[in-house]
Structures are given as structure tokens and as C-alpha cells.
């Protein structure tokens, strides 16, 4: 007879952790399916139609990619700050401010060459996003104020500010809708037609390029290395002569800028006008994207697609009479299970009786 004990190990490999996240997400979807079955729906059929709508046609895939783009951008923003051990719960607000800055440039700025306009919009959005996180960042680094709550509170401020803009001074004077601006004159161009991705715009390339750039920066540059050390152990980083506070500040500003750029891409590429509810909670979903990706930039691309699929499930549920907010509940469930699963992966089962000698008299 062999006994077993459950042992806790202090740290696990990336592979084990990723597997734990994958299993947790699957379990969360399974539990959600059970809940839907309890409501009298058919979860398997629903799941099938989600997959069919999202992946079964070229349109579906295009929509999925369009939905995933802002999620990946917010995920990159959150993951960059997670790398240095800080939480960005305010990606939603930075996204809004970025979009608003870009819209301001597009609607009221000079009309130059389209490329120049896009670049100006992008820079304005990044500046806006960085500015939006600057106060929480300074409060965190100089005063020790919790960046979690500070960044989050500004989401509400940003949302109210955007609502004011689109219903007040920037409201479309000729439009019928109450809460949107006019269409921006030069939106982001679509991808070339012979790539057979007709509905997609160049923002997608920006998203992928940025993810690759960040991954490379973390792996190959001194700056990225210092960020990683600052996240792993701030005392070690300071002892090694790194300017920890400056690195943290840079990471926070850049995180805000990335979320802001996400807002610009959504505005200029997909929606083409500023409107209230431009971000459908993308900043919050971005947290899950970053966590499931274990804050790896390239992983964010993958988990962003995954979460886009989950949000699509909300749309499919809506056709079945379940409010689309059910998708929000599902994202919460996935996050909860992922957090638990990550911990459970730290346990292993080992036999109690040591194997005697090399011969193994078991």
C-alpha cells in the first residue's frame, strides 16, 4: 500500500501555470454551461452557435479580430504594468481619453495627408492616456496611494467626461443620435483588398506590431530587463543600481499610452465616431486578458482572441433572450477560476514512502 500526501511547491514553471489557466477557463465555461442548462437553455447548442458565428465564416472571423483588437490593447496596457508589479484597473478610462483626444484631432485638427493625420491622432491619444494615468502614477510613487483604486476612480470621471463631450460641445449638429459626434473625416484605411480581409483596418497590424515590439523589448533590451527586475523584486533592483521609481513611472505612463492608443484605433478604425459606450468595458476585460496571458505581450494576443470569443457568446445569448450582461458574469467567473487555478497548480501529489535504493523495491 502506498500513501500519498499533497505538497505545496513555492513556484511553478510557466508551462504548468499556463496549463492551469487553460483548465480553469474551461472549467469556468463548463460551470457557466451548467448554469445556462439550469435556466432551461441548451449550452452545447449555444456554444456551437458561438463558435460557428465567430469562426465559421470570414465575416465572423473579421468581427472577432475587430473585437479582439481593443481587448488586446487594454491587455497589453495592463500586462506592462503587471510586469512591474502594479495594477492598471483604469485602462477603460485611458481608452476613453485616448479616443477623445484622437477624435478632437480628427474633427478639429488641420487636414493634412491621411497618414500624418493618423499619426497625430495616435500621438494625441497616447499623450491623453499617459496624462490620464499620470496622477494615479505620481500618487502611487510619491504618496503610496493605492493605484488600484486611483486608476479605477478615474474611469468614472473619463466616462462622464466623454458623455458630456458627445452630448454637449462635440455633438453631431446634423445627426439624429443624441450621444455621438459627427463621423471623422479620414478614418484608418482598410487592409489591402487582395489580402482577403476586407473588413479589417490597419489598426490590427498596429496591435500585432506593438505586441511583438513589447515582447522584444522585454527580452532583448536593458530597459525591458530592468522592468522585469523591478517587478520581480524592487529591493534587488534598487540594490543593483536601477532607478526603480523612474522605471515604475515609465511603465505606468506607457501603460496609459497604450490603452489610449487602443482607444484611437477603435475610434479611427472601427467606430469612426466618438460615442458614449465606445468601450464596452474593454479595460476591465483587459485585466483578464493580461492575467490569463501571465502578462506576456504575445500571450495577450491569444487571450485577447479568447476573451473576444467570450464577449461574442454574450451577443449570441442575447438572441436567446438572455441579456448580454451574462457575458460580463462569465468573464468574472473565468477570472475567479483562473485565480483559484493558479494557486491550485502549486500543489502536487507525492507518494509518502520513499523509493528504497536504485532498484526500486516498490
Amino acid at each position, binding site marked *: 500500500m502506498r500513501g500519498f500526501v499533497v505538497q505545496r511547491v513555492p513556484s511553478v514553471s510557466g508551462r504548468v501555470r499556463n496549463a492551469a489557466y487553460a483548465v480553469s477557463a474551461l472549467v469556468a465555461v463548463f460551470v457557466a454551461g451548467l448554469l445556462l442548462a439550469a435556466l432551461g437553455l441548451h449550452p452545447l447548442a449555444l456554444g456551437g452557435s458561438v463558435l460557428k458565428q465567430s469562426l465559421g465564416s470570414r465575416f465572423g472571423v473579421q468581427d472577432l479580430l475587430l473585437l479582439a483588437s481593443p481587448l488586446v490593447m487594454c491587455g497589453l496596457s495592463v500586462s506592462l504594468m503587471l510586469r512591474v508589479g502594479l495594477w492598471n484597473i483604469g485602462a477603460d478610462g485611458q481608452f476613453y481619453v485616448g479616443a477623445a483626444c484622437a477624435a478632437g484631432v480628427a474633427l478639429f485638427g488641420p487636414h493634412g495627408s491621411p497618414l500624418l493625420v493618423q499619426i497625430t491622432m495616435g500621438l494625441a491619444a497616447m499623450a491623453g492616456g499617459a496624462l490620464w494615468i499620470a496622477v494615479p502614477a505620481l500618487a502611487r510613487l510619491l504618496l503610496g496611494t*493605492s493605484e488600484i*483604486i*486611483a486608476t479605477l476612480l478615474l474611469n468614472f470621471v473619463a466616462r462622464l*467626461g466623454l458623455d*458630456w463631450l458627445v452630448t454637449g460641445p462635440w455633438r453631431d449638429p446634423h445627426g439624429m443620435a443624441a450621444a455621438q459626434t459627427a463621423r471623422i473625416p479620414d478614418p484608418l484605411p482598410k487592409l489591402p483588398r487582395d489580402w482577403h480581409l476586407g473588413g479589417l483596418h490597419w489598426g490590427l497590424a498596429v496591435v500585432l506590431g506593438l505586441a511583438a515590439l513589447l515582447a522584444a523589448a522585454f527580452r532583448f533590451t536593458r530597459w525591458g530587463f530592468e522592468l522585469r527586475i523591478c517587478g520581480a523584486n524592487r529591493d534587488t533592483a534598487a540594490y543593483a543600481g536601477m532607478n526603480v521609481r523612474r522605471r515604475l513611472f515609465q511603465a505606468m505612463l506607457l501603460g496609459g499610452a497604450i490603452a489610449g492608443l487602443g482607444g484611437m484605433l477603435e475610434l479611427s478604425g472601427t467606430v469612426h465616431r466618438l460615442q458614449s459606450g465606445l468601450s464596452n468595458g474593454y479595460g476591465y476585460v483587459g485585466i483578464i486578458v493580461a492575467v490569463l496571458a501571465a502578462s506576456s505581450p504575445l500571450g495577450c494576443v491569444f487571450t485577447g482572441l479568447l476573451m473576444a470569443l467570450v464577449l461574442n457568446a454574450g451577443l449570441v445569448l442575447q438572441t436567446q433572450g438572455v441579456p448580454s*450582461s451574462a457575458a460580463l458574469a462569465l468573464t*468574472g467567473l473565468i477570472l475567479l477560476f483562473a485565480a483559484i487555478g493558479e*494557486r491550485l497548480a502549486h500543489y502536487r501529489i507525492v507518494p509518502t514512502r520513499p523509493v528504497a535504493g536504485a532498484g526500486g523495491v516498490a
Partner: protein
Amino acid sequence: MSVVSGLLSNALVSGAVLALAGLGELLAERVGVLNLGVEGLMALGAMSAVAAVSGTHDPAVGVLAALATGAAAGSLFAFATVVARASQVLCGMALTMGGMGLAATLGRPFAGQPSAATFPVLPIPLLDRLPVLGDALFRQSLPVYVAFLILPLFLHWLLFRTRHGLALRAIGENPAACDAVGMKVLPLRFAYVVLGAAISAGAGAYLTLGFVPSWSDGVTAGRGWIAVALVIFAGYRPWRIVAGALLFGFVGALGYLAQARDWGIPSAFLGMLPYLVTLLFMMLPALTGRGRVAAPAALGVAYYRDQR
């Protein structure tokens, strides 16, 4: 009602939501668990209270439903953070998203309708006839008295005047030492996280049966997060939480007044006030040089016996 009296009354009513939510959060944080799910708990409580009164027309049933829902969701959160020891930040975010999503989904039949029952006004005899203050302070419903007097009084007594409270505070500071002298660290943490979650959900019940009073998606409007911030800058003390809640209630009430009297400030900016004032107050202790507020030392840290 005079302007002052109306302002004060409104401040009490909207402050009561924050006070209840904050006092619930205080219990969890004092035993060392950071519960960032207050917003979700409030949404769940608010929705289940409205759902319960729609059938029974009794606000007491609504409160019980909210407390039970909060305790159930709190148990899930406590299982994740105390037993499985998962990241408290992540589980809190998950509770917020899941709670808001679930409340919006299940609460859709009731959305936008006035609540079927609300808390009756409970005037305090004699005191309610005081000029100015009488109307504002002593003509409120029961939850307001609970939020501003009964619950903080009880929690202050519990935390600072009883041996049990000493144990609770010690668990938030140094669970290993508590474990060594035989206190039940994990069961106590679990119990008080659940109790706190129930109270926070009760704040949601007061929101939809007293303050607003109706359920709609997003009715909590970040009040749960303001409550979390409130606990921090109140230095984890019940009476200061209540005072802070009154202050925030006052800021909110000023916004309503400005809107009603049309002072020419767009309502969006007035709506921003509570969040901005919260942000300012979070920074204030450090700005005024009083240093960082002493949080429970083990706040947010999972306890493992083998890591002592």
C-alpha cells in the same frame, strides 16, 4: 424643508449607502482580506432586494434577501481567497464583474421600475421636532440609523472593546502569531469576510429600497469602490468611516442641489465630483504629512502555516 435641512438629509441618505458598504469592507480588511468585490456585492444585494420585495412588498424581506445573497457570494470569495488563497485583487475584480454581470442579467425584469416597497420613515419622538436638524437627522428610515449609529457603535465595541475583537485585529496584523497561540485564523477570516460581504450587499438593498429607489443596470455607479477608498483613508476605524461617508454624501448632495437649482455647471461635472473628491482624500493623509495610514500589516497576504 429648508435648504440646509434638505442638503443634510440628502447627505445622510446617500452617505448611508457608503457607510454600510464601508463598514462591511472594514470587517474583511481588519482580518487581513482585501475585498475589492464590494461593487459587485452591492449590485447583487440591490438586485436581490428589489426582486424579493416585488413579490412580498416587505422591505425587511428585501434586506434579508440581500444579506443572504451577499453571504453566498461572500462565501465563494472567502473560499477563493482564504481557503484556496488565490490572489485577493483578482478574486475581488472577479467578484465585481461577476456580481455586476449576474445582477444585470437576473435583474432585467425589474429594471427601471420603482421598487415595490421602500423603507418607511421612522421619526424619533421629540428629537424630530428640533428646528432644522430634526427633519434632517431624526426623520430617516431605519437603515440610516443603523448605518450612522447602531452599526458603527457595535463594530467599535466589537473591535476595540472585546477580547474577540482584539483577536480579529491581531489576525489582520500577524496571523502567524495568532495561529501559534491557538486562534483559528482561517475560520475567523472566512467568517468575517462573509459577514462583511453580507453587510456590503445590505448597502445595495438600501440603495434600491431607500435611496434611489429602483433597480437599473449600473445603479451602484462606483459606490462600492468609493467605499473601499473610504475604509483606507478612514484609517480602518468605524466612526471615521461613518464620518467620511457623511462627507461624501454631502459632496453628492451638493451635486444634486446644484443640478436642481441650475447653477450652470453641466451635470457631468457634478457627477465627477464624488470620484475626484475620493481620489483627493486618498492622497490627503500622505499630503498633509501624517504619513501613510496604518493598514493591517497582513492585509492582502494569504496565510500559510508552513510559511511561518
